[in-house]
């Protein structure tokens, strides 16, 4: 189990134990964290699982696959620290990861 901190738009921190191998998106959806829609179920086809990653974590994340940046073009208010949470697989290295959920996904 790895601890992931989800900060929702109302500034509440939800710390969740997520099983390694699941994605940060799945961790949110399975635990009813509001604000991650994940309409396509992790297929990198919807950009509604968009999160902002805290700066200190950016380098530790798996690099973006082809297509993630293209999808992020369509996300709601993308920034330089934007990622699609369905592309972030949880592992020991991510223990303590902090992601911020945007005010909206669409």
């Amino acid at each position, binding site marked *: 189990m790895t601890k992931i901190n989800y900060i929702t738009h109302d500034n509440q921190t939800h710390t969740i134990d997520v099983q390694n191998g699941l994605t940060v998106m799945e961790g949110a959806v399975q635990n009813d964290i509001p604000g991650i829609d994940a*309409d396509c179920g992790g297929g990198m086809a*919807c*950009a509604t699982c968009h999160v902002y990653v805290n700066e200190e974590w950016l380098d530790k994340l798996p690099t973006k696959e082809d297509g993630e940046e*293209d999808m992020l073009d*369509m996300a709601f208010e993308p920034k*330089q620290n934007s990622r699609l949470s369905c592309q972030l697989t949880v592992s020991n290295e991510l223990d303590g990861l902090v992601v911020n959920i945007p005010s909206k996904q669409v």
Partner: protein
Amino acid sequence: MIKKDVLIIGAGPTGIFCAHQLGIIGLSCEIVDNLDKAGGQCIELYPDKPIYDIPAVPECTGEELTTNLLQQIKPFNVKFHLNERVEELKKVETRWHVKTSGKQEFDVASIVIAGGVGSFEPRKFALKECEKFEGSSIFYSIKDKTVFKDKTISIFGGGDSALDWAIELSNTSKVNLIHRRDGFSGAESSVQKVKELNDKGKINLYTKYQIDSVSGENNIKSIKIKHDDGENKEFKTDYVLGFFGLIMQLGPILDWGLNISKKSIEVNTENFETNIDGIFAIGDICTYPGKLKLILSGFHEGALAARGCFKYAKPDEKLRFEFTTTSKAAQERLGVKK
């Protein structure tokens, strides 16, 4: 008013195959879809990508799957109403009256919702002020390009639509193209063309900029854009175009009194009927314990929902289970009877 046994909402793979199953058991139906073509996600999101898990079809693309499904329902002459969204359902005695955005009306015995994750709609600017200019100065699709002649147009986006329109409109208008990063998702040849036009001064390309604000009374006069490093630019513009792809929205489906959980409609697994008698839901839009959002599951759900529709369409008849290989009635309906 069009009178049929069943109305199918959504022309994705699930909706199309359900029409086949209805046809086989002798029920009539028509299909409404918000998009301009049949195929749902397969045609809109991944026409060229291969699918490997359709039973007995080792590999086919989203487009091939759609073409084959349409071929399979040809014998039933199912009518499609495209570019129309279903807006309203009303129970009238034992029948349902359905209204679409195109003012089409249906009178049916039951309804099958195969709406996927909802209808596809363009993604819009996040900026609140943009709403009031929508349809006058801000557009997300282009119907009549002549209005842009000799005007200043600011196009946002980095995909094919944004690039293609920037290139096209640069012939007759002053074009600014603004994108949030240096990379583009559109075709490489278009990217090169845009860069050439930028060098020649025919397009003004701004990368790593995003919209910051818009100003004007009834129409937009100017916009401000902001660079990643915080620097602002403001310029005059007559029109703003945003091309950020499509988003799926449940929209009117939310207002029909159905039990919805996590953007999906709850159904039973016996015949995929919802909490409302005579309304069925199949494919990505339905949920039940163990639901898999796969095309193959949608086919199964459609077969059972079609049988569920039978008792509403023909309350005095009993449906017999038959195989297409051996059923004379089914073969007649398919037009293959020897």
